[in-house]
């Protein structure tokens, strides 16, 4: 078949192939050169900042960086990295000696904690009023990370359904309800409006911790020797939580098979949603079919939540001049004037007190929600920050809780595959194994 072909065909093809190969080889060489050439020069005037956030929450940093450039001439380049893969990328970058100068990371990693610079001077500056409960501090007193913001679990309700049913709900943290009162109210709303469920509950250990704290428990807690256990009130609270997953009050599918609780709530068929402050800015845009509101977290009787640091801001020690420049930028960023702007644009709950940020949301529900969160934070019991501090401690000891067994084990309990006490025992074992003594 091919023998009949004219002789010009193959040779033309051959020439084309050779040309393509030559061009692509040249392209590779060029690409290789250009990268190695540009990275080494002008390093003292340029800093790199890695973060992982939505485009909306990058805006605050963009604004700061622009201002910093005008003021000092130092350019800070922001790289927004996808959340899935961020921790792997940081590890590999540490291996390749290609860490950024500044980063906002989801968690500290024992692999690169030794390369961090000490930020204690920023925390010790009195005028910054940084809440010291959230910083990551070593036993030598070095501050390795300052949160970019604070996050807390919180309750959202479908206000339209509540109004339709004529059921009242608390609006101020001093007069909040208990979990049982809340479920009773939600039951009434569901029955009179024909909604599908009372509540969706994020399949997240953090949300469960918040509920347990509010019911007086300590969830999985380490004693002074570093061994984990649970208390009676935790047992009771978790029992209560599992019993709520009955496909009437809460859909079983969220904790057992990964249904999206946020999407369910946004469909307007669910009376309330137990999630956290980060939903506010997205709900402000994505919920248009009904009115929603943030309501005070239930207290039975403890006023608490699971309060975490949103992102941990760290500086890496790449070279003397670069780390000095990085620290200068961070010192400037955490000054109240700059930090206030950052929290306002990004919709952050501030880690510094006394700021009174004015958020730019048009939605009054979002404005009210932020006001509520800012009012509630100081009222929360100290237990609210336990996990965040414990996590830092584990990392500084070279351990980390890579997989929290809570969701898997309680999923089994909800499915009836094991009892709640068995599930709790397995969770405690998991903690002891990964981060215990």
């Amino acid at each position: 078949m091919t023998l009949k072909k004219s002789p010009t065909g193959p040779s033309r093809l051959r020439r084309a192939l050779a040309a393509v190969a030559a061009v692509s080889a040249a392209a590779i060489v060029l690409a290789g050169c250009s990268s190695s050439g540009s990275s080494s020069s002008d390093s003292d005037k340029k800093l790199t900042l890695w973060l992982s956030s939505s485009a909306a929450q990058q805006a605050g940093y963009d604004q700061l960086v622009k201002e910093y450039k005008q003021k000092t001439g130092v350019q800070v380049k922001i790289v927004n990295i996808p959340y899935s893969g961020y921790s792997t990328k940081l590890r590999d970058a540490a291996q390749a000696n290609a860490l950024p100068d500044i980063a906002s990371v989801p968690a500290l990693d024992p692999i690169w904690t030794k390369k961090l610079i000490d930020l204690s001077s920023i925390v010790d500056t009195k005028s910054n009023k940084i809440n010291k409960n959230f910083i990551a501090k070593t036993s030598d007193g070095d501050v390795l990370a300052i949160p970019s913001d604070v996050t807390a679990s919180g309750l959202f309700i479908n206000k339209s359904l509540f109004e339709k049913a004529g059921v009242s709900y608390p609006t101020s943290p001093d007069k909040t309800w208990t979990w049982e009162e809340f479920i009773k109210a939600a039951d009434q709303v569901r029955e009179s409006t024909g909604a599908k469920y009372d509540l969706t509950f994020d399949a997240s250990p953090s949300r469960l911790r918040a509920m347990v704290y509010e019911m007086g428990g300590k969830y999985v807690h380490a004693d002074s020797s570093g061994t984990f256990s649970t208390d009676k009130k935790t047992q009771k609270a978790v029992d209560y939580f599992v019993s709520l997953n009955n496909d009437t009050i809460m859909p079983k599918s969220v904790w057992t098979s990964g249904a999206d609780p946020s999407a369910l709530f946004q469909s307007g068929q669910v009376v309330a949603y137990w999630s956290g402050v980060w939903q506010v800015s997205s709900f402000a845009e994505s919920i248009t079919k009904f009115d929603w509101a943030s309501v005070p977290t239930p207290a039975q009787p403890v006023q608490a939540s699971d309060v975490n640091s949103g992102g941990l801001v760290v500086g890496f020690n790449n070279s003397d001049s670069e780390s000095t420049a990085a620290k200068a930028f961070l010192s400037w960023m955490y000054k109240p004037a700059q930090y206030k702007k950052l929290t306002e644009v990004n919709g952050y709950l501030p880690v510094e007190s006394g700021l009174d940020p004015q958020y730019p949301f048009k939605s009054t529900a979002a404005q009210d929600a932020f006001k509520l969160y800012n009012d509630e934070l100081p009222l929360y019991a100290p237990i609210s920050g336990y996990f965040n501090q414990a996590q830092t401690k584990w990392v500084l000891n070279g351990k980390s809780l890579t997989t929290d067994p809570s969701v898997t084990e309680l999923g089994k309990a909800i499915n009836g595959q094991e009892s709640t006490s068995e599930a709790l025992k397995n969770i405690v074992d998991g903690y002891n194994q990964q981060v215990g003594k």
Partner: protein
Amino acid sequence: MSASSDILRTGALAAEGRRRTPHRKKNIASRQIGRHLSATTLLWVFAIGFAFPLLWFVLSSFKPSGDLFSYPLTLFPKQWTLSGYTTAWQSFDFAQYFINTIIVACVTTVLTVAASCASGYALAKYQNRWLKVFFVCILATTMLPTEVMLAPSFLVIRDLGLYNALAGIIVPSILTATGVLMFRSFFLTVPDDLVEAARIDGARELSIFFRIMVPLSRPIMLTLAIFSFQWRWNDYIWPLLVLNDPSKFTLQIGIQSIVGAQNINWSVLLGASVISMIPLVILYLVFQKYVMGANINAGLKD
């Protein structure tokens, strides 16, 4: 079964059989229609099964974000909007990511096809002990999942100075076992006589390869090219690890960064995903004939 017993019975009862003949013909014809009908129906059912989620996905990308989860769910947007697309295009350096991805996918594809064709030919047509060892080595690469090789490949790329360069994602993906195996099995079907005849006519080894073998293997080349393009277009974790500079990011990194830790901006994600599909759809329309052939080999590992 029943048809053959019918025939037996018609043999025995000839008179009755004569009367039954038209009935039988009709029976067979209706059965055939039934058979065709059921096959076609089944095809349609599958086609709808595959197309429906895609259709919903594309239509949802035109919904405003408030409509995405509202109940009852609707297939068509009540209000058509392009806001997801415009936000996606504006919030990232999409055009730059697009160009980067096209460069990576095209260059890798050309090099992959060239390398696979040459090595597949050598493995099929030359007898040499070391070639066999080499073949086993190539086979061995298919036995490890990509994730396992991530860290060692990363160290190699770093030490070669390809970190944070597009070449760092092109070079490691040039040699794929699938490509080599595809060409090898194809060249095995080409009779050795062709090579020998050419040798007798005085052709050198290289011209046998370029003048005879390369043109022969054009269908396989296109098949692999389509595959390779698709693989590189959809690559995510490796480019994320190797590239540091946003000006070198590929499209998949950009899309993935829309998925946040706590919440996802669905309308932007949908818009961005539809945009990223367009080149592959165009590729499919242009090379439709070969894609059909390519998918016969689907399920192979890159």
